[in-house]
């Protein structure tokens, strides 16, 4: 008998080999240190910006490798990291606030490969250096704030229907409303029900008064948390853009966490300051009917609240909110042309502008206050356990008389200095976080360690592989050579699949590849040992090959599927480094089955499968 494959199998193998080689190819070109220039707000990156940038580089005597202008902006490639850093400093100074200048590693893939969407593997932070943050979002606070605004809405609904109430109060979980009579209460409940769908109401009586309590429906709670998280992701993305990072990763993880990865960034202190600051503004009217002294003595109507300004002086503001910081579309810092004092100029969105216009019209010449709200973290011991909490710090930063009716554009003055104005503008522009965040995990990998990790990882793959190749050749001779070809192709395929998926390669991922190399040999060892057995019991060479492959197949399948189960479970339940390891391991198992079974068989069939041979080189 002879060993032959039908031609479609050869074609399939050839196609896989060619496609695999093409998609693995981009990885050998490496990458260039580069700078990505992109526009922040209204600016655009055009040829003018390009020529300006080139001029700057010429002045600072930086040699440029190439400059490409596309829809994403301007990409400048440099010969080395030093040149890149030098250029970045110069460009930042020259281009100013409207452009971000981000350090980047641009793949040096030739354009014909890029046209086929063949890109190199994405290197993880442990290989390229950078910052990794895991942040937790305080969604409880969102719910508490929601109850506050629900109380406002209930008051509004009751006023609209002219239903008299004795009190509407909110606490963390619920809003309670108090009424004099049963009819009023029932009327109020139906009014609230028709206006506010997110609330579920319960009625009760106590000490001769009639009450209802309102809590958020479960679906509303979930939605609220989800949108808060979503808004935080968006906000963080904006802030990261302010930082100037080339390929940031900002992802939601689980119910209340966000992962932020900033490749190439080393200054963790600055990154943290900008990422985790939670500042927002609230615009409220000053309650002129209540004197601060009364408020200090506790005589304060339920519609007003006592605040303090920067000097600690009491200010009484109305509880009803005009607008919050999330209505702000843009904010920029500067100096007031009249007084020369630092100011922040604010733009509002349509809804914000409408409310602002109405309010200012009705309250002309009355004072309005700007409240700056920050969330600061603290922790204390509670029953022997450490509890972290975020404290809401509210500060009136500015009280100004409304000088005219304004809506979309206005200014805040009364800030300490220009620096503060700049910081405030940045935070406002980047948007307010819907809920405070807390960094619960942080990793910084220096660039030298990243380069080291790549070099060492590569080294161990190459050396381990070479030793195994020699070993196989020594042990199985001709068949060993065949196995070696399959093993090399296997490595190419793993790299190709990782590149195609644009999966992140990490150090544990490299370990997974190394381990796959060791284990990929196993399939061939199983087959070859079987063939040897067959030869030993006196079968002809061709029959032995046939039987060897046949009998080993189910064993290889069982062994690999069980390992694959372990790898998949690792991927699903693992985090970070474990995931990277699991990905390469599973890809390696699948490609190795293909190359070690089909690949080697094809080579053997092609070379000796059609001939009458006396002895196998095994």
């Amino acid at each position, binding site marked *: 008998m002879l060993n032959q494959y039908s031609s479609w199998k050869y074609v399939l193998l050839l196609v896989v080999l060619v496609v695999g080689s093409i998609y693995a190819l981009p990885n050998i070109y490496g990458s260039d240190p580069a700078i990505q220039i992109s526009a922040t707000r209204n600016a655009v990156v055009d040829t003018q910006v390009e020529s300006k940038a080139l001029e700057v580089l010429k002045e600072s005597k930086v040699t440029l490798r190439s400059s490409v202008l596309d829809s994403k902006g301007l990409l400048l490639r440099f010969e080395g990291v030093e040149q890149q850093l030098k250029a970045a400093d110069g460009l930042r100074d020259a281009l100013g606030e409207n452009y971000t200048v981000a350090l980047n590693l641009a793949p040096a893939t030739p354009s014909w490969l890029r046209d086929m969407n063949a890109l190199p593997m994405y290197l993880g932070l442990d290989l390229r250096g950078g910052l990794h943050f*895991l942040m937790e979002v305080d969604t409880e606070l969102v719910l508490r704030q929601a109850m506050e605004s629900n109380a406002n809405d209930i008051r509004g609904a009751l006023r609209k229907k002219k239903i008299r109430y004795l009190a509407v109060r909110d606490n963390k979980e619920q809003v309670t409303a108090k009424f004099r009579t049963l009819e009023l209460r029932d009327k109020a409940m139906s009014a609230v029900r028709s206006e506010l769908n997110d609330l579920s109401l319960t009625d009760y009586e106590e000490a001769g008064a009639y009450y209802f309590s309102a809590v958020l429906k479960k679906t509303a709670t979930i939605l609220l948390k989800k949108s808060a998280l979503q808004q935080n992701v968006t906000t963080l993305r904006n802030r990261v853009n302010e930082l100037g990072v080339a390929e940031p990763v900002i992802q939601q993880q689980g119910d209340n966490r966000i992962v932020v990865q900033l490749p190439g960034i*080393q200054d*963790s202190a600055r990154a*943290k300051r900008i990422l985790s600051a939670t500042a927002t503004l609230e615009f409220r009217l000053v309650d002129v009917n209540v004197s601060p002294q009364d408020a200090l003595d506790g005589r304060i109507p339920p519609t007003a609240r006592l605040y303090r300004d920067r000097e600690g002086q009491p200010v009484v503001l109305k509880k009803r909110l005009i607008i919050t910081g999330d209505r702000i579309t843009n904010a920029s810092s500067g100096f007031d042309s009249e007084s020369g004092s630092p100011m922040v100029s604010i733009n509002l969105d349509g809804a914000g502008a409408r409310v602002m216009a109405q309010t200012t019209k009705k309250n002309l010449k009355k004072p309005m206050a700007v409240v700056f709200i920050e969330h600061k973290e603290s922790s204390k011991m509670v029953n022997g356990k450490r509890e972290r909490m975020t404290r809401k710090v509210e500060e009136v930063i500015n009280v100004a008389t409304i000088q005219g009716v304004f809506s979309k554009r206005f200014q805040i003055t009364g800030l300490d200095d220009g620096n503060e104005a700049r910081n405030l503008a940045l935070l406002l522009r980047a948007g307010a976080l819907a809920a405070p965040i807390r960094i*619960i*995990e*942080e*990793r*910084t*990998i*220096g660039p*030298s*360690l990243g380069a080291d990790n790549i070099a*060492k*990882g590569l080294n*161990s*793959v190459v*050396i*381990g592989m070479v*030793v*195994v190749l020699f070993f*196989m050749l020594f*042990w199985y001779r001709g068949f060993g050579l065949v196995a070696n070809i399959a093993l090399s192709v296997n490595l190419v395929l793993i790299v190709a699949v990782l590149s195609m998926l644009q999966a992140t390669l990490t*150090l*544990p991922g490299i*370990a997974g590849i*190394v*381990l796959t*190399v*060791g*284990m990929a*040999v*196993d399939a061939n060892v199983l087959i070859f*040992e079987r063939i*040897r*057995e067959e030869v*030993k*019991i*006196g*079968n002809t060479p061709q029959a032995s090959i*046939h*039987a060897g492959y046949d*009998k080993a197949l*189910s*064993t290889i399948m*069982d*062994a*690999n*599927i*069980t*390992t694959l*189960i*372990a790898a998949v*479970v*690792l991927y699903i339940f*693992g985090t970070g*480094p*474990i995931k990277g*390891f699991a990905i390469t*391991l599973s890809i390696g198992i699948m490609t190795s089955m293909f190359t070690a079974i089909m690949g080697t068989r094809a080579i053997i069939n092609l070379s000796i499968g059609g001939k009458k041979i006396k002895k196998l080189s095994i």
Partner: protein
Amino acid sequence: MQIFKNTPTFDFMAKRKIALAFSLVLIIASISSIAVKGLNFGLDFTGGTLIEVAYPQSADLNEIRQRLTTAGFGDAVVQNFGSSKDVLVRLAPRENTSSQSLGDKILSALKEDDAEVTMRRQEFVGPQVGDELRDDGGLAMLIALGFILIYVMARFEYRFALGSIAALIHDVIITIGVFSYFQFDFDLTVLAAVLAVIGYSLNDTIVVFDRIRENFRLMRKKEPGEIVNASLNQTLSRTMMTSVTTLIVVMAMFFLGGELIHAFSIALMIGILVGTYSSIYVASSMVITLKITAESMMPVKKEGEDQDDQYKEGQYIE
């Protein structure tokens, strides 16, 4: 090259009792070490702050400790990492400080002594993250074991499933036991390695089981003990080959892969050695202990059985 010119005829199962005693001793030793000494959990699991710095010349650890003590970090663990120039500083989670900035403070304290020092890596893990990672890791392991049990049960038979799980638990306990005894750093990568060991050891066990199943069909008149012995001998050269090649690459990782995957490769080395041993002595002898019979093997239809017999079946046809 071949290790054995002819199929070897070691009587593995004769030494079954000795091996069982040996395994039991190892397991008891491992469990007591884990109970008494515990594991030297890495930052991933304990939480805290870690910073790795590089000096241009050999670093004086005592000087660094003194500098950190004066800076208020008396509890810092200072050690070399990989070479005498690289230094690792570790701090336990702290009360009432935002531990996130601790790394920066340490770095600036070290820079006061030697401006040349550079930051290589800095990590902060909050305590609740550490707990979660530990729980999730443990959970992943249990779920993996569960799925494997189901698969082996479906493909083979419950006795084989129990045998393979016994071998896996044996391997995991001993690997972790060695880490506990020598107090090696047990971090996330080691957990990944332990899970890889599960995959590897299982691979080995399945190959042997596959042979046992095949031989039960071919050698109907033999005793189970003889059949298991024959199967182990037939697969012995493959077992050795695969262990050796895998050990080669793991050694390459250990010696060349750098300090960060040191613990990972140690775990794999232990696991490969123990896993090879366990597929012979734990998994297979468990199958005999559970009284496997030829009849119980029959219902499972083997692939390729209905293909025409172009080649002679194995040498045991009588």
